[in-house]
């Protein structure tokens, strides 16, 4: 592990960062200094390892979103950054300073909890003022920051209320206000929207991004929600089993998942998977198996494409298109059609014993398809993902 001494280089990522992850450049914020860095952090509760050497960095002004399956250690990582847990090994850097052993109050961070964690005995105003007063901020300054935050979040009418007199959305806003007035060097959010209903969630999501940009803040945001992850993030960090599996701009990660896990984790409905082998037909490389026969993009996979190699073929439901006659990559035996109005999903299988396959249809097409139909489908070669069945890594990320 890296020694906890010296000053973190602020411009380029340390070589240890991202070695285990598929790296995609993030040009938007590349020139900004690193505000928060996690270096090879491990953490175990008892004998169960939760974090197994996590590397992560967030550049100033950037919005980093951390996603991953439930229980993979996202909250633990966030709490480590906040100082609520202590790392077993590795180091944490905030604004170029090693904070690995510092208590939360010396880290200059603010955190918004999933439960909001407002002080039940204090009014909204006192909730906002709490952290400032502890730091001995002059009263006038406290008042002006509260005024500012409350104007930003529309809390003016609520300042004298107790938390129990607020709705869920109002509490959420107070929790954010409490973070904002502190003007911390980094904001930490742990699933801040999961207790809100869908409509409100969409509204607040936009609000959060707007605030982030307005404040020029640096943010680390943990979520379960794909939409949040895709829409909010400058950089998306996907965690699996205590490790960062991939990082990058959200669309890049979506389009070029570097592992099977990332591929299936992002996107809804999930990416379809079939096992198959690589074959050469008419001078082109095809992936075949399970009733599927798709041409693959040789530019993308290059030398990884050896004939006869066993692969997992991944195709997102949205990447199937109805096939013109004769050019079908497969034919779907439709079991059920889920019509959502603006689009539809056909569920079925390609072969009697094969895995369930989902394909997206236009609303128009969906009207014509019935249960029991056989639907010829085609796939654009650039939308075909290939993974090694043993390691689960994408063939282009090996």
């Amino acid at each position: 592990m890296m020694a906890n001494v010296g000053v973190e280089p602020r411009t380029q990522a340390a070589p240890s960062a991202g070695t285990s992850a598929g790296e995609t450049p993030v040009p938007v914020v590349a020139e900004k200094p690193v505000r928060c860095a996690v270096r090879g952090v491990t953490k175990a509760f008892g004998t169960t390892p939760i974090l197994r050497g996590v590397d992560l960095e967030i550049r100033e002004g950037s919005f980093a979103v951390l996603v991953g399956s439930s229980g993979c250690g996202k909250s633990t990582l966030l709490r480590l950054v906040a100082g609520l847990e202590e790392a077993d090994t590795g180091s944490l850097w905030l604004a170029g300073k090693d904070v690995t052993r510092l208590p939360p109050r010396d880290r200059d961070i603010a955190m918004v909890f999933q439960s909001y964690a407002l002080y039940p005995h204090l009014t909204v105003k006192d909730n906002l003022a709490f952290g400032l007063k502890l730091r001995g901020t002059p009263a006038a300054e406290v008042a002006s920051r509260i005024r500012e935050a409350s104007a930003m979040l529309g809390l003016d009418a609520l300042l004298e209320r107790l938390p129990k007199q607020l709705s869920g959305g109002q509490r959420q806003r107070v929790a954010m206000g409490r973070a904002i007035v502190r003007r911390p060097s980094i904001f930490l959010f742990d699933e801040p929207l999961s207790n809100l209903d869908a409509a409100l969630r969409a509204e607040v999501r936009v609000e959060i991004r707007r605030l982030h940009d307005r404040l020029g803040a640096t943010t680390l945001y943990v979520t379960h929600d794909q939409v949040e992850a895709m829409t909010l993030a400058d950089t998306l960090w996907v965690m699996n089993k205590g490790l960062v599996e991939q990082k990058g701009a959200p669309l890049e990660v979506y389009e070029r998942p570097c592992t099977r896990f990332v591929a299936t984790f992002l996107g809804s409905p999930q990416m379809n998977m079939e096992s198959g082998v690589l074959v050469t037909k008419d001078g082109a490389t095809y992936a075949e198996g399970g009733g599927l026969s798709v041409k693959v993009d040789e530019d993308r996979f290059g030398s990884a494409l050896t004939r006869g190699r066993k692969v997992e073929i991944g195709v997102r439901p949205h990447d199937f298109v109805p096939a013109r006659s004769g050019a079908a990559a497969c034919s779907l035996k439709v079991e059920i059609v889920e019509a959502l109005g603006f689009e539809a999903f056909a569920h079925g299988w390609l072969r009697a014993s094969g895995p369930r396959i989902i394909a997206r249809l236009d609303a128009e097409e969906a009207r014509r398809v019935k249960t029991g139909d056989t639907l010829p489908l085609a796939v654009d070669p650039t939308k075909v993902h290939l993974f090694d069945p043993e390691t689960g890594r994408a063939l282009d990320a090996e």
Partner: protein
Amino acid sequence: MARLSFAVIAALVLLLGAARARAETVVVWHAYRGDEEAALQAVSRTYEREHPGVTIDLLAIPHDAYSAKLGAAVPRGHGPHLFVDPHERLGFYLREKIVAPIGDGLDDATRRALDPAALAAVTLDGVAYGVPIAGKALLLFVNDALLPKAPPTMEELAALVVPGGYPLAYEATSAFFHAPFMHAFGARMLDDADHFAFFGDDAARSLDFVRDLSRAGAVPEEASGALVKQLFVTGKVAAVISGPWLAAELREEAKGLRYHTEPLPIVRATGNPMRSYVTIEAAIATPIATPAARAFARWLASHDAAVVRARRGRQAVTTSSAWEDPQIEADAELQSFREAARTGVVTPVTPAMRAAWVPANQAILKALREDMTAKDALLQAKHRWEDTMRPPPPPASPAPGLALGGLVLLGLAALALRRARAAGFAAELRASMPAYRYVTHAAITVGLLVVFPLAAGALTSLFAGTRDAPVYVGLANYLGILTARGGDLLGHGSFYLTLLVTVVWTVVNVSLHVGIGVAVGSLLSRSWMKIRAVYRILLILPWAVPSYVTALAWKGMFHRQFGAINAILTWLGAEPVSWFSHFSTAFAANVATNVWLGFPFMMVVTMGALTSISKDVLEAAEVDGATRWQRFRLVTLPLLKPALLPAVVLGAVWTFNMFNVVFLVSGGEPDGATDILVSEAYRWAFTKDAQYGYAAAYAVLIFGLLAVSSRVMSRRLGDPEAA
């Protein structure tokens, strides 16, 4: 088979029961144990054999409950026909109508056979109420191994050197044990006019004398009866002053101990013998005593019965002829018991005597601790005695009270009438009927268990005099209390001083309860306390043990010479502290005990409340920059407040009335200074000549104070939830 034999036995029992029912039964209560009980049983069986058709039903009642049980049972006709009791309580029993003349129980022949002094002891105003059966007085028990023969004078005895021990031990702070010294110096407890007389030069010299013994290390300080016995049994003391009861206990508990008894020595300084107070045990008749019961009482004093009681029960019987029995004549120990009883002074039975013990004890204690000169202490005792014996307030006319009560009732009736007239009342009442039905049983229960006793207590406070002859005195009891009976308003035993002590006591205790309870509760709620389950149980223990057990244990630990706390202090190189001789230390001892008893409650409340505080909120404060202490003070504590507040009010009320600790640990020492209002009320009711009305007035005042102050406290502490 088993069933058949069971049926046969049952039938036999029924038959026997029927036979018994026809026979005459004499119920006798006593507090004897061991040999004395065996002797009483033996003579009863003999009597039953000689008088077929008479059954003697003996019932042994523990000593502590004896008087109370008599007082409860006899006036309601459930009591015994006869009971065996020391004669001292006769005056009190007579006033409470628990006893009746013994009549033919003492015929002329029996009278002639009995010791005249003993006869006199059971006779009040020329009427005898019981048959005297044995006398008991203090004498000297000498450890053979340390002292083959006691020297003739107290001075010589006290001058003996016992390595690692004492030449003499006795319950020095008890007036009963001091009496032989008092008599040797020519002083007495009451004069001929039945007034307190234990003051003046002679009395003071007797106290100076024993104080000097204590100073010289000749006797252990403030020894209890148990300690005296223990010192004697373990050979740490050459001689002890005690009574025949000690011999009975030694027979049971220290069989191997070689000792003999001797009369108390004389005091060389005056040349007078040390004469003990003598207790005459008598078979006393109750108002339901039958001729058969009186006949049995008479027989108890007969020669034959007396011989058995002396031989078997080791009693110094009052029947003269029994002492001519050769075996008894040759029994040196029995002879010494008799000698002590014959040469002693029979304890007077008047209320004046009953009222004298407590002030006398207090004076002796103060003189021995050298808090005051003996003279001043005794003079103070005299004033206290006079305070207790002051005449009851004059009877007041009940007219104003009745008129007021009538007016209130009238007003209530008028109000009710007005409500009933109001429109829709009848319909409303009909509609609420089912609701009333649901609460009636609760209302009746609460009425019987709470309201009725309260009202009865409140009524009692308007009366003075005895239970049977109450005198309505209006508010005179309250007036007496609130004017400190004409004395100094902040003087000894005044209501205001005691109230002040009680308030300080409550505030100090509750603060410590909450402080320690919250601190320990918070510690135990920490997840890093691995074995906190064990600690939790350990810390709840003080709460689970009956409080009087704990209180007595703490009292023992605070003993001046033998307590654990002074042992630790000495070991640490500090001076031992005489805990109960100063207000501050005695108060501290009480507080320590009560804190020990009280903090687990607050701890449990705290731990319960802590589980409802979300961990997130504390972590939010941590991220906001709060230190551990700030998190506790600014978040945990305010969130605990709603749960703690009712506990604090409850705890304050409990502590305000924490009788057990004050009564058992300091017992009000020094000199009533650490008494709180309830223990003071108790003293008026039970140690100061049964002034129930006065005590009830105290109780009503306490109730009023608590009702008002707990309301105020809830309001004041509980107002805004926001800080």
